């Protein structure tokens, strides 16, 4: 019997799809299972236990790194989102002009330049600045995270703006709203889901960063990912499984919350 053509009926399609799901979720499932393992070896299941979660949460170094990550990520995500919102407005709320595509490419630079290159470049500059100013605080990491988070915040905000009818803002101006009122009463409320998505994305990307942070952090400035990397270099402990599982749980909750919130908005 002839069936209407559909990619679903392509030979091998199901197999490829299953492979993708396997590679994505099997490792994660394994990790989660081992996080609840009572034994201390990675590779042999010895019954259910919350032991590694307790150990991880009692580890001062982990808590310190986690708190540092949770300091950097919201600040960097906030500044990145503000910058991205302004950039998105500037590239959508006008008639297209010459050089606009170039501007967008400049904003998206961190997506295209290999991260390791940026990391080396920042290391070179920041080590100089450290010598000149004597400042060795978290500012460097926050500045770097802000810069590379901008395109991640920019993409959803711009996507949202492109679907928004420019005549709404014209109509508001026609109804006696000054530019700031137009922004506050029309643009911002309608753009809010995009801004929230941009912030979330920037937050997660900052929280997760290893390469740039590893290069530019000063002594004793471990974030959670760089701490984990440092630990893994010595030996793999089930403690890492527990932290990663917590990490996973938090991101699933954050993303689901955001999804529910944005659906309610529209």
């Amino acid at each position, binding site marked *: 019997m002839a069936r209407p053509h559909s990619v679903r009926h392509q030979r091998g399609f199901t197999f490829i799809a299953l492979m993708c799901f396997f590679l994505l979720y099997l490792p994660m499932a394994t990790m989660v299972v081992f996080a609840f393992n009572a034994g201390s070896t990675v590779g042999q299941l010895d019954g259910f236990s919350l032991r590694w979660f307790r150990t991880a949460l009692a580890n001062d170094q982990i808590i310190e790194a986690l708190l540092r990550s949770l300091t950097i990520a919201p600040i960097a995500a906030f500044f990145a989102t503000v910058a991205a919102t302004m950039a998105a407005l500037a590239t959508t709320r006008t008639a297209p002009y010459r050089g606009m595509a170039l501007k967008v490419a400049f904003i998206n630079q961190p997506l295209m330049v290999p991260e390791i290159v940026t990391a080396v470049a920042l290391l070179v500059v920041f080590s100089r600045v450290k010598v000149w100013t004597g400042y060795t605080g978290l500012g460097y990491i926050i500045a770097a995270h802000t810069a590379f988070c901008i395109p991640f915040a920019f993409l959803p905000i711009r996507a949202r703006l492109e679907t928004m*009818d420019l*005549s*709404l803002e*014209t*109509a*508001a*101006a*026609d*109804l*006696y*709203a*000054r530019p700031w*009122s137009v922004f506050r*009463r*029309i643009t911002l*409320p*309608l753009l809010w889901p995009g801004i929230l998505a941009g912030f979330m994305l920037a937050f997660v990307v900052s929280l997760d960063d290893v390469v740039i942070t590893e290069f530019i952090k000063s002594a004793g400035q471990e974030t959670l990912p760089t701490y984990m990397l440092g630990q893994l270099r010595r030996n793999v402990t089930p403690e890492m499984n527990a932290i990663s599982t917590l990490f996973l749980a938090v991101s699933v909750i954050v993303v689901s919350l955001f999804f529910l919130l944005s659906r309610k908005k529209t």
Partner: protein
Amino acid sequence: MFSALPAIEVRDVVKSFGDARALDGVSVRIKENEFFTLLGPSGCGKTTLLRLIAGFDYPTSGEICLHGKDIAGMPPFARPVNTVFQNYALFPHMTVAQNIGFGLEMQGKPRSEIAARVDQMLALVRMETLRSRRTSQLSGGQQQRVALARALAPQPRVLLLDEPLSALDYKLRKEMQGELKRLQTETGITFIFVTHDQEEALTMSDRIAVMSGGRILQVGNPRDIYDNPQERFVADFIGEVNFLAGQVIGIDGRTARVRLAAGGEVVAGLPEGATPVGRATVIVRPEHAELRGPTEQADLRGRLEQVVYFGTDTHLHVRLADQSEFVLRQQNSPRGTADLQPGAEVAIAFKPGAARVLKD
């Protein structure tokens, strides 16, 4: 109170976009309390003119005065002029009542006044029961009403309407035409209405400006525009018309005697301020001509080529001596016109005043 001054006066306005001239020297005076229509095909500059009056764009040169005060350089939020947009542009995150109250709120009116005015507007457009709805839950006709109420609520001096009925289906459009006319009469606000639909323009307007190529070709009341078009474009764009080539052979006051290329001579009215000599074009509307028997006194003679039945009327296509075609429209009656057969020799008589000379 402003009766001496026009509501809107546009003087020598030019608007260029790069090399293209969207408006090429437009001047027009729109009276207080008038339903004024800008009519023309797409790209004629009617929407550009409306946007200049609203303040969404600024003229390259020229003046736009509101009750005698030049507003051409004023931002839109400073002009006592409101717009009904083609796509309505209702704020999707606000209720019907919030949409209607937005302009008053931005003007800093007290809450109680806003509430009272919103109620009044909801009653005016007959939407009282839908005040707390989101605009996305409304039908096209209802959205149209909210857009009107929102633009009327701040009591603007002038209301601009940019093809507001084009998104509605035929029946609703007819209904809204009556509604708009009623609102204009009840509120006494000057309406400037943009459309490409000649029927809409003829049925609703006090006066019409016909635009083409960034210019206003003719301004007049609907009868005037329809019966006395001055230029070929105006005659052609509004309704159907027969063009007859001819030669002016004498002038008597406001009429000219014209010898037609298709044979015969007619007396035709002259356009304002023009006394053509030599070649001229005479126009006659299809319903302003009558069919006569071949032996009767007539203005034109020819051979009937086609009879097309249209329900309310019948169109008769007649081939004239110079091979041009002349179309007549005959109102149908229950007895019908069964005796008309293609190929018959016929004569055509013009009703008094039907023939007009164009400015060429």
